[in-house]
């Protein structure tokens, strides 16, 4: 039963892929797979930060608004300063957003859920104010296109970024003290505090991570749309949380699964892409997402209950 809990998402993903491969063989063409992976990259990349946040026992509901803000920052600054300085501004903005979230959570002692609920509204407001709700278009600055349609060999740049981030994040999670601290705080904040971990610093670090990874997702989105707008990214936070939880990261904290998040994000992408290829209206994808989430978690909780009954 432990095996299901840990690797269930891999079975689910392969199963989903098989079903769609039978229904619409186009889905496993090389072109489509690369396309699918690029589409998935935004949720997957923000999923890195979210996996750390949920492992530490927190949430970040503000990332949808952060992503909107990222597109606005790029949309307004690229025409003025060019691509590289704008990315620098974006990075600084991301770090500041993360520190702001971290400050509220650790210093004002507000639970992460409600704290980021409030900053979700604030960041969305700032994003809308920043462009006055208008589109900030950068149709004539095509150098940013490299983040969505650029390729190295045959592999799209967003996919490369995604894979690189997952490798780096895995090293951070497994091999660094920061990773150990994050897991420690998620397992028990009190105990972590007593054993000398600076909970507020680590938590702030986690929220900087969610913000910075979201900025990267935002860069890819801007590069796809060549537009910045404060209304983008609504509901993005829930998509990312869905992928993270489906991937096997425990909501109770302490136990994260980075590659699970990636696979879950890919699986959600397969569903969306497969239904598209089959010509099913977009909104059925939400239905399937919801049902799969229920199915996966019912199996988890029921198997846990069975295991408990067997031992007792």
């Amino acid at each position, binding site marked *: 039963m432990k095996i299901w809990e840990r690797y269930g998402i891999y079975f689910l993903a392969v199963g989903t892929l098989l079903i769609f491969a039978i229904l619409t063989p186009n889905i496993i063409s090389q072109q489509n797979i690369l396309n699918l992976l690029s589409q998935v990259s935004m949720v997957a990349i923000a999923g890195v930060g979210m996996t750390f946040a949920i492992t530490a026992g927190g949430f970040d509901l503000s990332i949808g608004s952060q992503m909107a803000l990222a597109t606005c920052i790029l949309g307004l600054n690229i025409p003025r300063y060019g691509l590289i300085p704008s990315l620098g501004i974006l990075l600084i903005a991301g770090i500041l957003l993360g520190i702001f979230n971290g400050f509220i959570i650790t210093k004002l002692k507000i639970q992460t859920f409600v704290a980021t609920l*409030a900053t979700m509204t*604030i960041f969305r*407001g700032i994003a809308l104010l920043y462009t006055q709700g208008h589109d900030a278009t950068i149709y004539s600055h095509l150098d940013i296109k490299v983040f969505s349609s650029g390729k190295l060999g045959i592999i799209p740049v967003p996919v490369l970024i995604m894979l690189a981030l997952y490798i780096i994040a895995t090293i951070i999670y497994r091999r660094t003290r920061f990773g150990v601290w994050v897991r420690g705080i998620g397992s028990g904040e009190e105990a972590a505090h007593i054993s000398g971990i600076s909970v507020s610093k680590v938590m702030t670090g986690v929220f900087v991570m969610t913000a910075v990874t979201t900025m990267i997702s935002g860069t890819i989105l801007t590069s796809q749309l060549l537009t910045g707008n404060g209304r983008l990214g609504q509901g993005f936070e829930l998509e990312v949380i869905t992928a993270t939880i489906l991937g096997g990261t425990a909501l109770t904290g302490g136990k994260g699964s980075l590659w699970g998040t990636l696979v879950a994000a890919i699986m959600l992408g397969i569903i969306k892409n497969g239904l598209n290829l089959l010509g099913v209206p977009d*909104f059925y994808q939400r*239905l399937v997402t919801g049902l799969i989430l*229920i199915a996966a978690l019912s199996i988890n909780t029921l198997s846990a*209950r069975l295991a408990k009954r067997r031992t007792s």
Partner: protein
Amino acid sequence: MPKNKRSTIIKNLFADKGILFALILLWLIGIIANRNFRNPLIFMNIAREAAFVGFAGIGMTFLIITGDFDLSVGSLLALLAIVTVSIVGTVGLFPTILIVVLLGAIAGGLNGTLSAVMGIPAFIATLAMYFVYRALAFIISDGNPVQFQEKWFTSLGNGKILGIPTPFIIFLALAVLMTFVLRYSLFGRRILAVGNSKKASTISGIPVMRTKFGAFMLVGAFTGLAAVFLSSRLWSANPGMKYGYEFEVISAVVLGGTSLKGGKGSVMNTFIAALFFATLNTTMNIFRVDSYMQRVVIGIVLLLAFSMSGIRDRIEEYFRVRRSSIASAKAGD
């Protein structure tokens, strides 16, 4: 009724008055600073708008007291609003209300089955249903807005009784009723007990699962009521309506002092918090605050309110520790 009992009822109605003071303060500022605010019609509008978040807020208060919350109410609202608009012409007003509230309760029961009965954490269970209900709203409406032709139905959301907006009257009546349910009924006491300690409740024989299930059904039923009034108010419904409604509702409940940790909360304070939100929106409109700036202000107000309760808890904790240390020092003499 004995006098001290009555006074505890009144005390319970207004326990934890921070949000009430904030509301009165906001009203005073508005009245002093702006002439438009002195028009009673403004208050009628505030009262009307408060009801739409408030209905679901009443149910959500019960659920949050048990220590869970429901992320699916926005999607459910859209789904039930579409159902309302689709059936109101054929079945009439009261059957519509009955059917939609019942459907809401069934949907809430479904959430409850997943969460309370099967043991999936409420956050994830209702997150899944957030996708499902929204998808169903799109599927049954084919992605298009729906409208009703029956003009009489608009009076439910837009009408007045004795000069007071109908939704507000119903909202107030239900808030008072549910305050009594929470404080004095078996179900209400169980809700509070489960929120305080699941373990202690189980040991003392309270059916924890059924109580939580009931709270989920209550959220669904009240969301149904919100759907009926809102679609009447808007003359229509569309499957993409009210994204983020779940967050508005949860914010109002938490702003009213109901703790996300469970065990503590008041329906009357949710009622006042809903009024506070509506007042804040209206005030900012009157003062011509940029509509984007309004979001920033709302977020900051939420942050202030949330940190208040943390600070208050810490002050209480401080005094409790001090009192007990004084007591033990005295005992030591």
